[in-house]
Each structure stands twice: as C-alpha cells, then as structure tokens.
C-alpha cells in the first residue's frame, strides 16, 4: 500500500481508496453483529470470536492438512485451490453457524430479561471459543491461502495496489446488498422485523418465534464467519483477531445507531475513511481516530447517526 507523504488531493487519493475498502470491510464485520442487535436486541460479544473461528476453520480446510479421512483428504487436495476456496467459503460458515446455534440454545434462558444477561453470556462464550482456538491451533500466526487470480498486486499510476483488497471490498459490498434484499424485500425479513417489534402479536399470528430467533442468530454468526474468511488474508490469522474485529463492529453500530441498516453501512465507511485518512498523516494514531470520531458523534447525537429508540437504552 502507498506510504508516500500526503500533500495534495491527488496524493490523498490512495488513502481515500484505502479507507473506502477498509470501510466496506468494517461494515461487513459489523453486519452480523448489527442483525442480532437490531432484530433480537441482543448484544453478541462472541461476534469477534466467531469471526476468528471462521478464519481458522477456513485456513484448516484450504491448508495442506484438511480435517478429513486420509482418502478424502487426498481427493480434496487434488482439487485446484480456487475450487477449494469457494467450497470453504460455504462450508466454514456452516460449521461456525452450528456453534452459533449452540450459543443461541443457551441464550434462550435470557430472553425477555435484561439484555445485559445476553451480553455477559456471550462474553463468557467469547472466552470459551477463544480458549478453544488457542488449544487447537496454538498462538502462532497463520496465513489463509487465496487463489492466485485474486492474489498479488498491480501497478496503477506509479503505485502498487493489492488485488485482494479490491476483491474483498467487492465481496463485502455484494454481501451487504444481499442482506439488505433479504431483510427489506422478503417475507422472512418482514417476519423477523415484526418479531423484533412486537413478539406477542407475531406469536399470536402462529409464527414459531423461537425458530425465527434461532435463524436470525445463526444467520448473524454465519455472517461473522464469512467476514472472518474475507478479512483473514489482509489481517492475518491469530487468536487476537477476534478482539480486533468486535471493537470496530460495536463502534460502527453505536456510531450508525442501533437498529439502522444504512446507518451501520455509512458508519462503517466513515470509520474506514477516518482510519485511512488518519493513516496518511499519523499512521501510529490511526486506530485512535475512530474512537475520537465515536465520542464526537455520540456527544452531539445521543443515538448515533440514524439510531431509533430501543429497549437497549432503558
């Protein structure tokens, strides 16, 4: 990525682009978290750990030693990396979704009570998942292999650009669009939103609310895993990556406003641009800039950019 000192607007362009791609990734990371907060009014602190778990599972599946019987593993390894990568992009989120299902079964006890219960429960779950990751994979860093078609870089106006970043940003934008379609344009989305708004009426209409909640929660964890797989080649795979993801995720949600889809997307882009531009002037402090952005925005707009009133406020 470009490291030239930013002086004119044209010099800033790489940083702006970098910030935009980063922003789309932040929005993607926040997406699953946002769905669970917005539609279930539960804060899933295990989001980051599920994100990391997705990356680890994907790494294991595409790596040289897949967790399969010897014969199957040999067949699997003869497949080209591109095929394996695409298959992993589907299989790994399903595995993480099963873990999410387990968390939701525990979380059922806390519905109708204080959201703080869910928050504490998922904090415990995050600890457990992170410890499991450490047990299975140790503390070393791993690299997720990606097909050569989206790897490497290209030169444009004397600067080297990483192809993968653009691929990742494109995928992120695509998934954000798909999720929007699912929530806003399908009857499933309508039912889920109704369930969040007035669970009693929805139940009285004969809809199985607990199955609906399970679906939403699992969907949120699947999105966390996909985000993990997409981001892993950029950030690297290590046990701490979960915390690195959950903090921007909640930041994006608070900034965008709880319960607002486009608020989260815009906030993600804003945070990405802020970090990208801060990186141009003081790269050491670029992470700090997003917290300051949050404090400034929330001081003046109590519910974030587009937040609605929710039970979480009390």
């Amino acid at each position: 990525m470009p490291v030239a000192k930013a002086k004119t607007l044209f010099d800033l362009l790489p940083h702006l682009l970098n910030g935009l791609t980063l922003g789309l990734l932040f929005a993607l990371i926040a997406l699953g978290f946002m769905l669970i907060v917005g539609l279930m009014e539960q804060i899933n602190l295990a989001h980051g750990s599920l994100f990391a778990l997705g990356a680890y599972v994907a790494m294991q599946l595409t790596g040289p030693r897949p967790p399969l019987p010897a014969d199957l593993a040999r067949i699997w390894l003869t497949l080209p990396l591109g095929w394996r990568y695409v298959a992993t992009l589907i299989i790994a989120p399903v595995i993480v979704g099963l873990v999410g299902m387990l968390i939701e079964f525990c979380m059922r006890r806390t519905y109708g009570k204080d959201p703080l219960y869910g928050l504490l429960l998922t904090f415990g779950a995050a600890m457990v998942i992170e410890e499991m990751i450490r047990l299975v994979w140790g503390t070393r860093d791993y690299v997720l292999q990606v097909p050569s078609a989206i790897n490497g870089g290209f030169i444009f106006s004397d600067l080297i650009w990483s192809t993968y970043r653009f691929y990742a940003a494109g995928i992120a934008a695509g998934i954000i669009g798909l999720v929007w379609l699912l929530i806003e344009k399908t009857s499933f989305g309508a039912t889920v939103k109704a369930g969040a708004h007035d669970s009693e009426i929805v139940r009285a209409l004969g809809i199985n609310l607990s199955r609906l909640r399970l679906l939403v929660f699992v969907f949120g964890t699947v999105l966390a895993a996909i985000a993990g797989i997409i981001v892993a080649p950029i950030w690297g795979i290590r046990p701490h990556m979960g915390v690195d993801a959950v903090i921007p995720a909640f930041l994006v949600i608070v900034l965008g406003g709880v319960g607002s889809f486009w608020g989260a997307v815009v906030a993600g882009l804003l945070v990405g641009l802020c970090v990208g531009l801060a990186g141009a002037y003081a790269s050491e402090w670029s992470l700090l800039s997003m917290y300051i952005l949050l404090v400034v925005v929330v001081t003046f707009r109590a519910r974030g950019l587009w937040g609605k009133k929710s039970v979480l406020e009390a």
Partner: protein
Amino acid sequence: MMVGSKSSSEAARLVTPTMLVLWLVLATVPLWITRIGLYPYLGIEILIWSLYAMAFNLVLGTAGLPSFGHGAYFGIGAYAFGLCQFDIVANLWICLVAAALAAGLAGALVALFISHRRGIYYAFMTIAFGQIFWTLAIKSHRITGGEDGLLKIKRLPANFGLVSFDLTDNVAFYYFVLAAFAVGVAALWRLVHSPYGRVVAAIRQSETRAAHLGYNVWLYKASIFALSAAVSGFAGGLFAMAQLAAFPDVMSLHQSGYVVMMTLVGGGLVSFWGPVIGVFLFLTARDVIGALTNAWMLYFGLLFIAIVLFRPEGIAGAISAALQQHSLNALRQRGTSAMRLLVGGGR
C-alpha cells in the same frame, strides 16, 4: 438494599466484626501460604485486585452502571505511580496519591461525557473510552514504554517519620498491601453506607424518582464514577509496586472484562463482599487449575456462563442464602432485579 448491610447497627460502624475477622485471617496468610504450595505474591495480587474490584463495584453494584472499561483507571494509576517515582519525587505516599489523583481525574473527564447515559449505551461509551486510554498507553512509547511497559519501578520504603519499612520482600509488602486494603475497605464501607452512598443506591433503583426528590442525579453518577476510578487507580499504584512495572495489558478490553466477571461471579450485585470472593476464586483458580492445564480460562468461562444462566446472584448470594436460611428463590429474584436495574436504571 444490599444483603451484607442488613442490620443498621453494622452499617453505621467504621469497622464491622466481619472486617476484623477477615483481616485477622488475612494477617496469618504468610505463615501458611507456602505450606499449601502457593506463594505470598498470590496473596498480594488477590488483595490488590480485591480492592480494585470493590472500587469497580461502586459503579456496577452500588450505582448500577455497567462500566466495561475500568481497566483503564487501574492502568493509569500504575503508570502514574511509576512516572511520579521517576520524574517528580520518589516518595511512597506522594506517588500513591498521584496514582489515585491521575486515575480520578481521568475518571472525572470520562464522567463528563457519559453521566447522562444509562444501560447498554453507558457500557458502549465506557468501552470506547477504555480503548482510547489503552491505545494511548500503547502508542506513547516515550512516556509509557509502549507495549514493553514502564519497567524498573521500585517498591519505595514506607516512611512513617520515625520508622521506615523496607517493602522489597514479598512478605513485608504483603502486610503493607493488607494495611492499605483494610483502610480502603473501611473507607468504601463508610462510603456505601453514608447518606451519599444511599442516594447513589437510590439512583440505581430509580433515576427518575431520585431526580424528583431533588437530587442532582448527573452529579451523583459522575462523582461515584470518578471516586471509583480514583480508588481503582490507587490499587493500580499498588499493582505497579507489586509487579515492579506497569504494563498496558491491564487496560485492555479483556482485562476490563475480567474484573466485571470477578465481581459478578462473586456476587457484587447483592453483597459488599462479593467482589473479594470473586477475585479470590478467579486468581486461585488461575494458579491452581492453571498449573494443571493451559486451558484454565476455558473452564472459568464455562463456570461464568453457568453462573449467568443459573445463579445471577453470584456466590455471595448463594452463601448468604445458605447462612441466613433465605429462600434461594427470593434471593435469585433480588439478583435478577439488580441485574435488571443495571440496564433499566431509570424506569
């Protein structure tokens, strides 16, 4: 009202029988702790973290405000202790006061931004500020030593004018920390049971009602947060002495989460002594289970999940139910309502 303060005569005292017994037992710890395979340093850690968790419980248990970034003030205290020692004056008392003051000021600054909040948004804002302080600590290499930490902090001698005690030995330092802990606990007990503490507890139960009674709710919420931060900073100063260094690690989101866990597992929501029980369990489990398996956090995490699901009143609640033949159900309801109040503060 809290379970630990049932009789009003106890609440009015400076030192309660429970405290005296606890201090006496704690005073004998160095005599036997090595015989059961542990070491005095664990005792020091437990006392310091207990003081920290009790200070934290002022905000969580007494005021009912969920703060998830409290590690910041503990860490600021530790750094302030070291920096005061290096750059201002190497006097134990001045350095400890500096630790409490620096953390208290940071807490007051944060309180300005968050004291009109409640519930989950309060939690979010405390996390954000905790992260700001943590990033500052890691990135200001020249002041804090960055990720390597501030090293070579000395255990200054405790000078009482006529006599001066050397604290470099762990046993001597243990007794110093025990004295500080005793003073701190007595002060916190008085604070919680003072008219001021009662108002704070009333705000936990209903912010609107307290406001209608004419109390300046914002000021109470801000001041209890700053006070809690100051005592946390004091504990942080002691911790810097214990470790002979100050590290940014204690300020991370994880470590801030641990103090929440310790307080809740112990039963800080229903008991004054809850945080101490939680810290004792957490740190002893870390050393005992940690010696057997690397994955002790896994088991503690599972225990924590079980407590949140089945025993929201924590261990202190369960003990006091057993001792006083309370019906466990009534207590559980109290734990549940305390939990509810944490978020639903003003309803």
